[in-house]
């Protein structure tokens, strides 16, 4: 980020705020992070900030796991500030902490203060994928209801419990950036430990705390009136935060004043920053506004750079044009190249005349050959352990269709939200809405034969599991759970319990589970699951009925879905006279049919499926077969 490691920006932000000790919890790339910290200025004896890097156990798979680990290590003995390692801010966190402590003193049930910043919809620094509606008490900013809003499908309404309308004035706001800075009391990790299913801080934990009367805890919001705070979540916010830094919104955290990398920059009109160290500019090169040029960089004749960040020792040759792009250290751009709105990793070489269209991500050490043209939104990286100069060692991932799958991915488009809108519209998150309409549009996962034409067929054929992989987290986890259940011959009710927990955790629609069953060949478990879920009061009759009545749920005769449908029908039939639920469960279990499927819905499912013997009542045996198949 602007020629300094992002983590250093975070540390600097914390140091500005008066934080004294930082624990960095990390899992992947622990060694390199630890080394970077060890070699940074933060490890010097005079550093005001003590930084400890801690490795999370490899079993950590979510935020919840991480914080449970923190709890088990008993590092935290006092109130603490929880931030993500991708934060840039100049908010005086100490004041927020003070306010939090005052509230906590008055009321012991206050466990958390969430820092939010006002920013209207359409603000560049707003993360597209993870916005939320905050419902607060207007008098004291106590958070009363939190609802995450995904970018797709477009949601036009929000809801909050009627119980909130009890005379107090409410603020319902959608114009807030969640800065990812939380002042937490020691109770927070404990609550996480007590509720093992909580994975996400916002979606699970906050929702749980706000809805649970047993806990009786309170969460407050704090407006960062004066100051800047934002997270770098994806290439899009990377660009936005870079621009904010260059535009001095994060003052005094600006390149010419307090650069975390220790570089010295000179501030020139138009928010141009030139490193004071060995920058070579040709007489007729052009540097546009909002540009940062790192030490040792060189711009040759008629090179044009605007709105961009150049790392250390970059070389831009004659006639090249770089616009709104982010070049890391040691990038070399050949003569006449055009680079738009892209991020180029360290030591990338772009040879003469190549064109990189907007939204591309080019990995480290990649060489773009002469006069090649990289289409929009491409992602190019070098395969690990490949010979360095082999042409074939680069693989290109066409990012654009992939973007359409989930709400976290769509932000891959770094800059151009207008172009992204198309993908936003087509893609679906599938976890937020029970409306059949939106569900229907969810092209990522279902086993329906009539997969919409919007879906790129080339992509479907590429990898049998690709569609599953691209599902959101819930889909993955649910699938894993199912698979494990089958592999390890778990009792079906256990699997159902896990699934239902998962479903609660991610607030997913029960239909996802059905679809999952259909796609992943486990429909044998469907009936059992459905009944188990029903028993557990996770889904109710209406949902099943609604699903049942929908024409598309029925599927083609003989297909996977159709069988499921029949199972559901049987179950509904059993329920209809309001008969004993136990028996309905038995019935549905008995009635469930095998998923053997000669004409599967999707090519990817087909590629892995084989014919198998049909009709098996016994769950365990059935699962045996499944595992063999795996």
């Amino acid at each position, binding site marked *: 980020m602007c020629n300094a490691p992002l983590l250093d920006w975070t540390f600097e932000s914390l140091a500005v705020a008066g934080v004294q000790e930082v624990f960095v919890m990390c899992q992947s790339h622990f060694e390199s992070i630890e080394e970077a910290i060890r070699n940074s200025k933060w490890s010097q004896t005079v550093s005001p900030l003590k930084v400890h890097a801690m490795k999370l156990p490899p079993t950590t798979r979510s935020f919840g796991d991480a914080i449970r680990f923190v709890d088990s290590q008993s590092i935290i003995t006092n109130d603490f500030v929880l931030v993500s390692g991708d934060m840039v801010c100049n908010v005086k966190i100490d004041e927020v902490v003070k306010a939090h402590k005052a509230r906590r003193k008055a009321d012991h049930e206050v466990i958390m203060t969430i820092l939010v*910043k006002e920013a*209207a919809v359409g603000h560049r620094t707003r993360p597209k994928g993870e916005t939320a509606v905050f419902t607060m008490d207007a008098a004291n900013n106590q958070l009363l209801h939190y609802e995450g809003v995904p970018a797709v499908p477009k949601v036009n309404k929000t809801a909050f419990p009627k119980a909130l309308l009890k005379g107090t004035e409410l603020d319902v706001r959608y114009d807030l950036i969640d800065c990812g800075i939380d002042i937490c009391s020691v109770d927070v990790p404990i609550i996480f430990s007590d509720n093992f299913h909580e994975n996400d801080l916002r979606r699970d934990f906050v929702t749980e705390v706000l809805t649970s009367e047993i806990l009786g805890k309170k969460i407050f919001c704090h407006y960062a009136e004066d100051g800047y705070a934002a997270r770098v979540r994806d290439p899009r916010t990377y660009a936005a935060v870079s621009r904010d830094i260059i535009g001095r919104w994060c003052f005094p955290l600006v390149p010419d004043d307090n650069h975390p990398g220790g570089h010295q920059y000179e501030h020139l009109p138009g928010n141009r920053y030139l490193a004071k160290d060995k920058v070579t500019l040709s007489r007729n090169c052009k540097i546009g506004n909002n540009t940062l040029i790192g030490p040792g960089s060189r711009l040759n004749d008629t090179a044009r750079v605007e709105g961009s960040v150049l790392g250390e020792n970059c070389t831009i040759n004659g006639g090249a044009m770089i616009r709104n792009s982010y070049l890391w250290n040691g990038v070399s751009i050949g003569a006449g190249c055009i680079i738009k709105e892209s991020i180029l990793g360290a030591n990338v070489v772009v040879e003469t005349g190549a064109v990189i269209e907007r939204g591309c991500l080019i990995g480290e050490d990649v060489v773009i050959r002469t006069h090649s043209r990289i289409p929009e939104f491409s992602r190019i990286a070098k395969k690990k352990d490949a010979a360095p100069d082999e042409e074939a060692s680069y693989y290109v991932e066409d990012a654009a269709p992939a973007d359409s799958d989930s709400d976290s991915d769509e932000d891959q488009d770094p800059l151009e939200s207008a172009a992204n809108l198309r993908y936003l519209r087509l893609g679906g998150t599938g976890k937020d809405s029970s409306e059949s309409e939106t569900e229907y549009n969810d092209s990522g996962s279902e086993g329906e034969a009539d997969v919409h034409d919007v879906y790129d067929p080339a992509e479907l054929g590429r990898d049998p599991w690709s569609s599953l992989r691209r599902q959101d987290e819930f889909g993955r986890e649910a699938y894993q759970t199912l698979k494990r259940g089958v592999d390890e011959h778990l009792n079906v009710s256990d699997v159902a319990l896990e699934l239902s927990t998962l479903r609660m955790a991610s607030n997913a629609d029960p239909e996802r589970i059905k679809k999952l069953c259909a796609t992943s060949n486990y429909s044998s478990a469907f009936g059992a699951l459905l009944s188990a879920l029903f028993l557990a009061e996770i889904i109710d009759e209406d949902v099943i009925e609604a699903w049942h009545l929908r024409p598309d749920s029925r599927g083609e005769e003989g297909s996977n879905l159709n069988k499921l449908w029949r199972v559901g029908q049987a179950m509904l039939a059993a329920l209809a006279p309001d008969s004993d639920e136990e028996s309905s469960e038995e019935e549905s279990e008995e009635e469930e049919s095998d998923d053997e499927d000669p004409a599967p819905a999707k090519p990817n499912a087909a590629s892995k499926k084989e014919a198998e013997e049909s009709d098996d009542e016994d769950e365990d045996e059935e699962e045996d077969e499944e595992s063999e198949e795996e």
Partner: protein
Amino acid sequence: MPEIKDKGILRQVETLTSKLRRRQLAGAQESAIETTLLIKYIVAHAKFATIHELIAIIKAAGRRLVEAQPKEHTVGNVVRRILRLIREEWAASVNKPVDEGDQPMTTEDSQTETGEMSTQSSPRSSTLSVGEQTPLMTPATPRPVVSDSQYSLSNFVLHGRPHREATDFASVYAATIQESSTTPKKSAQSIRPALISAIEEVMDELETVFETVSSSAKDHIHSDEIVLTLGMSRTVEAFLKKAALDRKFTALVAEAAPSFSGHQLAQSLASSGINTILIPDSAVYAVMSRVNKVILGAHAILANGGVYAVAGSILAAHAAQTHRTPVVFCAGQFKLSPLWNVYHTYGSLDFANPAHILGFQEGKLMDQVDVLNPAYDYVPPELINVFITNDGDIPPASMNRLVKETYDNEDYQL
């Protein structure tokens, strides 16, 4: 360049640099006071065999501070000023036995270089361990021969030659006279209390600077005058309040957007009984025809007589120029910087957070507009009539002289 070795000092320096860098410490007076405290700490704790070593340590610390926050000019100013005081104290202590100036002498090498010195200096250098000394090319304590402590314009004229030559002359001359202080090492340590008391004097001066600047207030403001000021300057505030004790006048205060610090000043003046009118910055030109005097505060005074002052000052100064209204800057002497050409650098205007002008929440606008929020204006000397300092009233053209009197040539570059 020599660096600081002592861990304790290094930590103190590091703490202050990061405070300055992060703007946790801001404001001319506060920065100056913190810097003075730091140097006092260094003088009290540093290990030095000769005065040169002490000076080198302080210079190194000063260099780091200035690099950390070049826009807070007072930091460098205070360092330079204390360096000068140290040199004066040293010269005084060495000179005490004899009336004439002398040189605390340097390494054996430099002595032998200067030929004739060797004979006298050999007994002296035997008392020193050569390794401890800082190798300096020229003797580093420039003292005009004629002066013992004060270097003033009169001495300058009396001496009749530029400072640098005087220094060289002094060193040669000093070497030729019989050296009386035979144990410089001991005396370098022994002047520590004197140095500390000198630093404390600087401290006192900084703390009382507003009062001393405003001591002549009633000579500048006459009854029934209309005075215009802009933004909040504590010096101006003290100055106007002092004047109000003897005179009845009207103060027009421009609010100085976007900080609107003028509101604060207006409130303060009004509460102490001054007839105060708060105006927007845009009205400055309109009211100028009625104004008798423009009194402004300075962030830094440059050696050429130019000033960095709160943004909006250039507007007031130009308006005043048009109406031939006198422009007066009130500032403590600690704001006087030996730099003069920093106004060439664009960044020295210190562009602050644009959020004060355009709210961060204005997403769409923010994307299309680059917002600039300079903290200071550079007011060139030709727009300024006089400076009122604790050193007296000085026209811009004489700033150069005041710089020479206040700081040592050696220290312009820290």
